[in-house]
């Protein structure tokens, strides 16, 4: 009887500890978000640090974004063509691919690539600074580490990602055109006329808004896990891993909710 009682107590203790840990995590993430928001509007504005980060996130991600987008555009065109040919509507391949890429693939893929490349780098860099007391050194000098390290990274990711999203969209469409027109033999005139009929500039907005929100979240998660690092090299590894894993999970979950909201706002209410 005592043994059963002990097992029950341990079980509830475990559940309680898990709940408390998660609540603590949510609390500290909310505090991090509020700190970043607060320090965003406090002087001095760190323009140079922002530009350095913008260059690192934007320019240094261009090649990998271009490479992945061209092949994504090509493979989606191939698969869509096979499906549409059965129904005899293969001339619609162009607009279907453009809409898919503009609304979903470009923002989500760009965000995932930036999470892996830059979210991880943010967590590792800030985490290393934390374990080597460089963050304490900043604080002791009277400089907010959140303002100096966090704010430029979060805003740079938020503004760089929509631009990378546009690059993804443009290059993926070149890949799509190449496979559709040059490889699969869709008549070029039909390909363009269907594009004109179904695709408008407003399609871009959905992807751009999503990319900006994803960018902000990636910056926030990357810096949060950097500041949270404890211990030595092992802690930095764990922080980097958490930044990438949580970044990707949150992007995919958020994508659904953002889509539901944007569909309502942009199409149903005609904003």
């Amino acid at each position: 009887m005592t043994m059963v009682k002990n097992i029950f107590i341990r079980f509830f203790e475990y559940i309680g500890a898990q709940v408390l840990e998660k609540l603590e995590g949510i609390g500290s993430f909310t505090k991090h978000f509020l700190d970043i928001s607060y320090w965003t509007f406090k002087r001095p504005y760190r323009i140079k640090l922002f530009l350095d980060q913008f260059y690192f996130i934007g320019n240094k991600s261009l090649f990998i974004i271009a490479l992945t987008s061209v092949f994504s555009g090509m493979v989606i065109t191939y698969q869509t063509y096979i499906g549409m040919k059965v129904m005899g509507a293969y001339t619609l391949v162009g607009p279907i691919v453009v809409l898919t890429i503009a609304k979903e693939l470009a923002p989500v893929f760009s965000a995932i690539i930036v999470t892996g490349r830059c979210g991880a780098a943010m967590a590792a860099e800030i985490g290393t600074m934390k374990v080597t007391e460089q963050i304490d050194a900043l604080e002791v000098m009277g400089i907010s580490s959140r303002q100096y390290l966090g704010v430029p990274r979060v805003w740079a990711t938020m503004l760089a990602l929509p631009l990378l999203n546009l690059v993804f969209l443009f290059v993926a469409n070149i890949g799509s055109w190449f496979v559709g027109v040059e490889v699969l033999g869709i008549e070029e005139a039909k390909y363009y006329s269907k594009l004109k009929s179904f695709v408008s500039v407003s399609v871009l907005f959905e992807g751009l808004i999503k990319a900006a929100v994803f960018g902000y979240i990636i910056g926030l998660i990357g810096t949060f896990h950097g500041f949270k690092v404890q211990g030595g090299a092992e802690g930095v590894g764990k922080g980097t891993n958490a930044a990438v894993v949580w970044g990707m999970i949150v992007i995919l979950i958020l994508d659904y909710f953002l889509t539901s909201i944007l569909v309502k706002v942009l199409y149903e209410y005609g904003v």
Partner: protein
Amino acid sequence: MLESAISCRNITKKYGEHTILKNLSIEIPKGKITTILGYSGAGKSTLMKHFLGLVKPTKGELTILGNEVPNLNDDELRKFRKRFGMLFQYAALFDSLTTYDNIAFPIKEFTKLKKKEILKRVQELLRAVGLSDESLYKLPSELSGGMRKRVGLARALALRPEILLYDEPTTGLDPITTKMVNDLITTTGRTENTTELTSVIISHDIQATLKISDYIAFLERGEIIEFSPTKEFKNTTHPTIRKFLDLTTH
């Protein structure tokens, strides 16, 4: 009676049920070198964090340079911390910045000096800590442990602080560099500063402490069990301190 730079009155710090500092009182004199000695886990680092306003006491009063530190808000604390310099255990240099940029960092942040003036000040500070211009554009990874400590000290002195804190300044250094750092603590701070510089050292290096300190405090389990001028401290009869002195001097 010497004027106090740091005054702790009945400070208690608790983390949950765990008491780190117990009713601790100490008056650290202005313009002197005071070392806080103690075994690992005695509460030395927590006490240092209180001085910097990084931690607030659960109970008690803490006055530094006339400021009631626990009552300062975040903005006031940031301004207040500019009156401090700190040499970290492993120097804590920004590893993406050169020696020049590390030392110039606080100067660029908090003064309106021109580039030429900043360079002149950095060179002055480098010379004060015994380094030449050769190391000016080297990254911390290209410097030895001793050189990094000296650059860290130069950075700590950059804004002419009123209080200089040292966290284990000689840990991990060879005997020659240790002597050099100790000499710097006793000389550089004083020559660099126009006002009287108060130095507070956290250490368990008893040999160095006896040589360079004007006052020594001994912290045990969150309590100051002895605080006296170095001469008196050497002759203390307190059994714990005698044991510490005997173990570390033989």
